[in-house]
């Protein structure tokens, strides 16, 4: 195959250009996070620090709601890491496109592999496996937008009227609904979500809210997988997705040989 010649400054610019929609989406979302967290009594510096070390939007919103609900710290960590376990899928599925990279570059790029960065990288890696310069520009400009928005939101948080802060509280369920229905298009995935919801509600009614998310996730995933492997129609819709994924992975492997 023909040798891919990559010019770093050009790749940097291309990465920045592709990052624009993510930067535009992260900025208001992280402002919302800053406003919401400070409205619930978290000091601005702690809120800023959480964005610097976590860079995981859904988990951060969840941290604020679990923290204000007085959840035990260990179950907070377990719940939030379970939420972020979906990132295992991202790394393993786009990994082949990074096969030719130097090891240290992979460790740097992984920090910025959020839902949106993954979605963008995954959709383009078929045509052209990303270069480090491209990927770093994409991931770290998105990171800057996330941190800058948080700092801004946290610093104006106190000035936001209570009614507005209360309405912004629904940003979190809305974000979850969006993440859910962006991906869950098969019947088995909807059943997995419904099972998770039912188990978590029962756990809370039974007075065990800390266990709800973990048990709900494990039960929901297992029921979803069982349904996907037994339900013929669901199986067919997954098989279609699998063929697309296989084609993509083969193309990446060819590209990295």
């Amino acid at each position: 195959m023909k040798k891919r010649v990559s010019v770093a400054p050009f790749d940097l610019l291309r990465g920045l250009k592709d990052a624009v929609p993510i930067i535009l989406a992260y900025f208001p979302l992280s402002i919302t996070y800053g406003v919401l967290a400070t409205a619930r009594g978290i000091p601005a510096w702690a809120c800023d620090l959480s964005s610097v070390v976590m860079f995981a939007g859904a988990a951060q919103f969840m941290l604020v709601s679990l923290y204000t609900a007085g959840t035990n710290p260990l179950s907070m960590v377990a719940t939030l890491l379970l939420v972020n376990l979906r990132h295992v899928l991202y790394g393993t599925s786009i990994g082949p496109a990074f096969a030719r990279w130097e090891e240290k570059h992979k460790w740097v790029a992984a920090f910025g592999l959020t839902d949106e960065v993954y979605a963008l990288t995954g959709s383009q890696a078929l045509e052209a496996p990303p270069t480090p310069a491209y990927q770093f520009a994409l991931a770290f400009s998105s990171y800057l937008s996330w941190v800058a928005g948080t700092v801004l939101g946290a610093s104006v948080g106190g000035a936001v009227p209570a009614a507005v802060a209360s309405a912004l509280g629904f940003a979190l369920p809305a974000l979850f609904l969006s993440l859910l229905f962006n991906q869950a298009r098969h019947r088995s995935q909807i059943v997995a979500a419904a099972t998770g919801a039912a188990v978590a509600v029962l756990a809370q009614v039974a007075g065990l809210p800390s266990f709800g998310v973990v048990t709900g996730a494990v039960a929901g995933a297992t029921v979803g997988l069982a349904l996907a492997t037994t339900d013929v129609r669901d199986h067919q819709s997954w098989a279609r997705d699998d063929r697309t994924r296989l084609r993509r992975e083969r193309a990446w492997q060819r590209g990295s040989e």
Partner: protein
Amino acid sequence: MDPHILHQFIPVAVAVGVGTYLIRSLSLVWGSRLAWPAWLRQWLAFVTPAVLGALLGPALLLPDGHLVLPWHNPALLAAIPTAAVAWYSRNLLFTVLAGVVFYAAAGYLI
């Protein structure tokens, strides 16, 4: 300042930050080297909707920790049009903005 910030919020944020980074980096490094068993990847694919369901269920049905009737529950009422927007738009920011507006409207109507 609330001591829980130093003793709970910050340590949890740092632990989850480090853990998330390890999940992202180890899966990328391993994913670039070896193939994972198909059943494990498929099970992991179901963890995401299941976790989201488990977070949404109590947030929508038990807003203050106890059952609230649907017509007195703005979160549940707002979730229906928000879910429709999420399904059809597939746009994170747009769905969040629509959701906040629906929630404010539901709170005003109730």
